């Protein structure tokens, strides 16, 4: 025995050492020199800073915490700017940290045109938003440390999303953005609206995030890798797989919920309960574009499929129309901006979908479809500029007047000239008017949509006509809400009595960030080619990698924005119709009230939540009755059904009478006594009868033990039965008279059916188990060795104390515990003696 132990231990030690060295080897080999690159540090910097923010907040009470935080995005923005020349030459920066190498999960930072574009947006707008928030949030009233910790976590997570090559690390950061967004929306947690909005956005985005995780695993199943780069090289394999479409749909579900596409846009308007800097940053410029990023990033894998083009194109364009149509009935400035964000995200999404068609036309020189992708990237930047500025304007108005309701606002032009100018530039850019940047991307949007009709694939040549029409109608509404937003706020009559504060111009610090954004709108409007070569081209190259050789440029697409074409006439039509609609708004605005509230998606969402809650509650109430009898019925029914079905389906019932003992007279008599005894208990009206009958059954069992040659058992059974009956009789005095409490034949019949079922099943199982003996008993060993090895004569006792002594030890424990438990139950009466009132009801 000892020998065996030591040998085993040696093997174990060797095994352990082997495993250990294997782990360490692979660990160090995989590290491969690169430990932590500067790029990784850039992603982690906001997280690291977030740790120090509370200390800075507590330590430097006099300085607004935002000033410390401001360093991080500014630094990062500068750092990412210096990659522009590298990325412009289509060079790619890739750094890897191994995270869980055995599961092929690592943290690969990957920087190409698309990632750089997003990183610049995140850090650039992040800098401005932090700056703005310093003036927006009061140092005295607000809990600034919370705000900046959440914001920094969000910033780092967003950088992680756009810079990750490994899908698992991307997913990790993705959920970090959901989480930090949840925290930021619920920043004023004492308000009901904030909590409702935070919960709603959490539920919807996490639903999408989990779907995306499913898609990621399907991709891993197909290609055996989590790296997006390697997925692209395995594209043929993935496209041939039956899991291709499911994985695409799951990933798109993630992208659509995050980017607030139809019908998942409903969380975004409710997320406007967040502080305005958060709305400007998360819900216009960055987080909602994570879905756009994902679609663009996965385009090389999926875009050749017609499903991709159709889903993204049609959902995007419909979202664009639907949200712009609904923006008009909003009365809250941020509400309009939220719907406008949804609409613009739909626009970008539809362009990405339509842009996928470019992959089917390999001839670079004549590929007129690439313009859609370029337009998507261009509009992405433009939207970040004008929407960021407009949110800040909304925040300024809220800050200076005390309301965001456009019915109360008006005539602020003279009082707030700078805000007015910024709003003018922003809303005109959003409406797509020259000379601002929105005009250019809107023209490219029309170009892209008009060209859908020229595609001769996936039956787009017929149905494709819908794309430019919906786009055009959507643009009219976009124009309408843009000018509405602007004119309702700044022109007309000043309603002083409705305002909480006397309006005046905002402080310079609050105005600076929107001024910078407005300046960018004009600069990009007049000199779009700054962006073209440096940022848009590498980004388009990343979305459509097959079309772009390293070092090759497709100059010309974005710079040609002159010349009259069908797009120009479409724009003129948009302006003309938009103006007419604006002037007649009071006449046709009633159509919004025709649309019943019960048919909205918000109502549907609320109902689903309600149904889920009440449904779960009623299901639980239905089976968790609180009656022990119900649970016993479930258990016994389950036992009957499972055993019965198994017996029938496996054809397991068998009677084998060859190996059976003969029946004697004594046994028959004893059997009769047992049957009569049980029947007596069932029918007894007095408790004494039933206890005596139980005793009779027990003594009969001990007589069975005598007949079946088990003297120890017979002895024990006799003693125990006597003690049990004595115990029953002892407790007798205190126990109530036997009351069956059962009324009604149905109750008894049900019980009878269940109990007969159990009895029959047990009998059948016992008979077939006995008839199916597979091997002989191991009793031979005990019979032979009881004397030689254990020095005993009584085999049962030797088994109990020698061969299987452990059982006996714990059986003694059971008795001890029962005794102590009984003692405790009788002695300890805290409710009565502890001075507390007895909870008798």
């Amino acid at each position, binding site marked *: 025995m000892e020998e065996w132990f030591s040998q085993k231990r040696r093997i174990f030690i060797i095994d352990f050492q082997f495993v250990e060295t294997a782990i360490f080897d692979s660990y160090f080999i995989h590290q491969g020199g690169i430990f932590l690159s500067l790029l990784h540090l850039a992603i982690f910097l906001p997280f690291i800073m977030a740790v120090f923010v509370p200390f800075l907040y507590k330590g430097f009470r006099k300085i607004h915490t935002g000033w410390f935080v401001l360093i991080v995005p500014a630094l990062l923005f500068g750092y990412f700017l210096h990659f522009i020349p590298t990325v412009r030459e289509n060079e790619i920066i890739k750094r890897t940290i191994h995270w869980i190498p055995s599961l092929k999960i690592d943290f690969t930072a990957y920087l190409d045109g698309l990632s750089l574009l997003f990183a610049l947006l995140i850090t650039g707008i992040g800098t401005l938003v932090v700056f703005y928030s310093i003036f927006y949030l009061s140092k005295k009233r607000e809990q600034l440390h919370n705000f900046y910790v959440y914001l920094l976590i969000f910033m780092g997570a967003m950088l992680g999303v756009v810079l990750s090559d490994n899908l698992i690390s991307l997913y990790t950061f993705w959920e970090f953005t959901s989480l930090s967004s949840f925290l930021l929306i619920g920043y004023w947690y004492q308000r009901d609206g904030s909590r409702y909005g935070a919960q709603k956005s959490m539920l919807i985005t996490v639903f999408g995030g989990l779907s995306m995780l499913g898609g990621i695993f399907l991709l891993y199943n197909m290609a055996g890798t989590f790296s997006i780069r390697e997925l692209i090289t395995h594209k043929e394999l993935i496209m041939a797989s039956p899991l291709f479409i499911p994985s695409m749909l799951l990933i798109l579900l993630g992208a659509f919920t995050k980017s607030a596409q139809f019908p998942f846009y409903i969380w975004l308007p409710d997320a406007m309960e967040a502080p305005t800097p958060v709305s400007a940053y998360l819900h216009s410029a960055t987080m909602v574009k994570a879905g756009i990023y994902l679609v663009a990033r996965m385009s090389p894998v999926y875009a050749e499929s017609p499903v991709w083009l159709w889903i993204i194109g049609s959902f995007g364009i419909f979202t664009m129309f639907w949200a712009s149509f609904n923006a008009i009935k909003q009365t809250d400035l941020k509400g309009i901006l939220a719907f406008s964000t949804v609409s613009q995200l739909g626009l970008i999404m539809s362009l990405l979908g339509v842009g996928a068609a470019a992959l089917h036309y390999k001839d670079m020189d004549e590929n007129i479809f690439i313009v859609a992708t370029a337009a998507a990237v261009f509009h992405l930047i433009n939207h970040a500029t004008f929407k960021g500025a407009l949110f800040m304007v909304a925040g300024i108005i809220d800050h200076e007047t005390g309301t965001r309701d456009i019915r109360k606002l008006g005539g602020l032009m003279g009082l707030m000239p700078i805000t007015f100018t910024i709003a003018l530039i922003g809303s005109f850019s959003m409406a797509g008017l020259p000379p601002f940047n929105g005009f250019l991307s809107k023209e490219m949007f029309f170009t892209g949509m008009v060209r859908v009709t020229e595609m001769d694939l996936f039956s787009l040549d017929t149905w494709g006509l819908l794309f430019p029409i919906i786009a055009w109608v959507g643009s009219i509404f976009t124009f309408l809400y843009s000018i509405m937003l602007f004119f309702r706020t700044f022109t007309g009559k000043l309603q002083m009595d409705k305002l909480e504060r006397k309006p005046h111009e905002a402080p310079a610090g609050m105005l600076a960030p929107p001024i910078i954004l407005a300046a960018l709108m004009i600069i990009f409007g007049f000199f779009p080619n700054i962006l073209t070569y440096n940022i848009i081209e590498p980004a388009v190259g990343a979305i459509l990698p097959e079309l772009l050789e390293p070092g090759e440029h497709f100059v010309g697409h974005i710079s040609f924005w002159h010349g009259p074409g069908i797009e120009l006439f479409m724009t003129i039509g948009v302006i003309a119709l938009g103006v007419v609609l604006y002037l007649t708004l009071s006449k046709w605005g009633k159509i919004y009230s025709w649309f019943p509230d019960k048919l909205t998606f918000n109502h549907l969402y609320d109902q689903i939540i309600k149904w889920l809650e009440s449904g779960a509650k009623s299901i639980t109430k239905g089976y968790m009755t609180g009656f022990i*009898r119900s649970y*016993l019925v479930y258990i*016994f029914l389950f036992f009957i059904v499972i055993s019965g079905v198994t017996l029938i389906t496996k054809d397991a019932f068998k*009677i084998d009478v060859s190996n*059976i*003992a003969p029946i004697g007279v004594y046994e*028959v008599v004893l*059997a009769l006594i047992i*049957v009569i005894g049980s029947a007596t*208990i*069932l029918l007894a009206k007095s408790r004494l009868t*039933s206890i005596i009958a*139980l005793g009779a059954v*027990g003594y009969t*069992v001990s007589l069975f033990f005598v007949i*079946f*040659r*088990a*003297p*120890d*058992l017979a002895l024990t*059974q006799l003693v*125990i039965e006597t003690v*049990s009956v004595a*115990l029953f009789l002892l*407790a007798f005095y*205190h*126990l*109530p008279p*036997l*009351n069956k*409490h*059962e009324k009604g034949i149905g109750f008894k019949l049900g*019980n009878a059916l*269940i*109990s007969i079922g*159990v*009895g029959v099943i*047990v*009998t059948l199982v*016992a*008979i077939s188990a*006995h008839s199916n003996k597979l091997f002989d*008993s191991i*009793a031979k060993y*005990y*019979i032979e060795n009881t004397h030689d090895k254990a020095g005993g004569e*009584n*085999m*049962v006792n030797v088994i*109990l104390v020698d061969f299987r002594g452990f059982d006996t030890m714990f059986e003694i424990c*059971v*008795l001890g*515990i*029962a005794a102590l438990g*009984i003692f405790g*139950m*009788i002695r300890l009466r805290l409710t009565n003696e502890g001075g507390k009132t007895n909870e*008798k*009801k």
Partner: protein
Amino acid sequence: MEILMAVIIGVLFTSAVYLMLSKSLLRIIIGTGLLSHGAHLLILTMGGLKKGSVPILGEHAKHYVDPIPQALILTAIVISFGVTSFFLVLAYRAYQELGTDNMDQMRGTEGND
């Protein structure tokens, strides 16, 4: 013989389950008692009821009955005795405190569980 025993065990199980499904606490305890009798007899029957000598070496017999099920049953008897006695005292205390032996009335009220 085994088939007769299987039927008897079935009868014991049937009565035990019927008693356990009733509402009176005393009947439930009696039911558990019957159930353990059934289980013990089941173990013994499954071990085989062939004639042989008592499993004591002094008998000098050619065949002995299987001692292992007997050891198992002995353990089971003691444990079920412990549990039954505990259960009985529990019922007694419950009746003392709650004033009822009806399981339906012992059901926890809502919000009190």
